[in-house]
């Protein structure tokens, strides 16, 4: 079966610095795939190159078998590859409903219309409300996003991504910046996403990773160190060393 995402020799360089180093990654369709690694391992850089925020220096990216390496980000989104951001990237002055509706309107290419009222489009509003209901935000639909607490804003981040109807969803630390209790709730929602949606997520909290991931790739200094099931990764001495080593480094600093 064709993997949902497949990269070959993917590399990203900034001058002399190699952020992503020769990464060949396969993410199976419907996977719950986690990307872990110590700080500065290049996880976010890898997400940037995958989704087209930053063009790859070399290597290829295939989405469902189709090469997308040189496509701009918006074109990848239209082919079903959507991401969320580690730091909220929301339309802060718009309402929660408008945030999600905009994603749907763009997907349906209705934003070419400058005569009909956006709010009067029932189908769009209905779908937006479904996504909001999924992340338990239906009560906040009419509020401007900036008025929501940070934890709820993280869920808007997710709902916007759902509005693009992705086949592959790349989540960059979906629970970053929220208290532990709430990150649990966010991951519970992610876990409830339909099984045919492929998930690739970056996460720091190992507890969450081992609970929700079915496959884990470990990234160190921009390169893949190892990949396996949660059990395999948990048993891997090298992985432990990387994390313990990091902790040791922190203690020294």
């Amino acid at each position, binding site marked *: 079966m064709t993997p949902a995402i497949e990269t070959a020799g993917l590399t990203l360089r900034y001058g002399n610095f190699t952020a992503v180093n020769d990464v060949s990654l396969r993410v199976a369709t419907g996977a719950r795939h986690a990307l872990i690694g110590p700080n500065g391992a290049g996880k976010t850089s890898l997400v940037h190159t995958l989704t087209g925020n930053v063009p790859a220096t070399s290597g290829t990216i295939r989405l469902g078998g189709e090469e997308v390496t040189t496509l701009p980000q918006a074109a990848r989104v239209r082919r079903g590859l*959507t991401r969320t951001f580690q730091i909220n990237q929301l339309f802060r002055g718009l309402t929660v409903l408008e945030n999600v509706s905009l994603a749907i309107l763009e997907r349906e290419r209705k934003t070419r219309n400058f005569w009909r009222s956006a709010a009067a489009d029932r189908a769009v509003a209905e779908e937006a409300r479904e996504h909001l209901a999924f992340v338990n935000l239906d009560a906040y639909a009419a509020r401007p996003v900036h008025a929501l607490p940070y934890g709820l804003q993280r869920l808007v981040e997710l709902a916007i991504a759902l509005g693009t109807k992705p086949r592959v969803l790349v989540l960059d630390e979906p629970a970053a910046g929220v208290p532990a209790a709430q990150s649990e709730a966010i991951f519970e929602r992610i876990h409830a996403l339909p099984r045919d949606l492929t998930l690739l997520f970056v996460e720091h909290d190992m507890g969450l990773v081992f609970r929700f991931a079915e496959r884990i790739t470990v990234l160190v200094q921009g390169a893949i160190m190892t990949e396996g099931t949660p059990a395999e990764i948990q048993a891997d001495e090298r992985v432990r060393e990387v994390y313990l080593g990091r902790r040791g480094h922190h203690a020294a600093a």
Partner: protein
Amino acid sequence: MRMVRVGAGLPLLLLAVAGFFLFPEYLTLFTSLFILSVFALSYDLLQGHAGVVSLGHAVFFGTGAYTTAILARHGLAEPVLGLLAALVVSALLALVLTRIVVVGNDLTRLLVTLGVGFLMFEAANQARDLTGGADGLSDFTMGPVLGLFRFDFAGETAFFYSLAVLVLVYFFLWRLAASPFGLALRGIRENVRRMPAIGAPVRRHLATAYTISGGIAGLAGALLAQTSNFASLDMLGFERSAEVMMMATLGGTGSIPGVVLGATGLGYLKDALSAMSPKYWQLGIGIVLMLSVFVLRGGIAGAATALIRRLRERA
């Protein structure tokens, strides 16, 4: 916010008509204020809705003015046709310029809009045969509007003609602001980085906005040329670009009635201050722009919305 956006149009229109009966000796001033409002609304589509700055918007205003003046000199004297021609020519110019305006970053965008402004000014100055150079064009006569209404000495025709255009533009932009396209522009304003991540063609949105905005600015310029029987270099000069930026800012960027109020208020102030000396008007522009950054961030519209909200909470 919605309350202000939707509800203010009709009272404003009634005010304008009342002005006709109450101050018949000021019709020319009213006409110029309507035209400034159209121009400010066109610019606000960029700054207020999409959140992108332009320092050369007068280019389209001036292009519209010259288009209808030159056509009238060559026999096309019917004003509405002149307006349409100005709309098309200015919009086409804007469409051509989007190639260099829409790409790039904030600094280069400022640079390009400024540069294009000076370039067009210089071009109009050199093309003396077409534009009359520094003397401008005044040797043309507009025919009656739709073949029915002659421009009269008291300025009654000009008053209603300009008001009609303002109402049409106002209504069009009001619909546009509430449309999916309007929402996409606000999306660009609120977070241009997220837009590609939801699959939005940001450049195309901006190019469309720029083209519409340029066309409407051309409409405003044509109106001024037709009602004042004059087209001149200062209509595409830098100062006019800066003025329109100030009017949109002060009125409350993104609010259609707010921008109309801002344009009317400042247009009146300009008329009064310039009567003393242009330097006081420039000092005024300067101080208002500097202050606008610190106080009254939402402009007149923002202040009005806050007031309405407070009154409602009390009730």
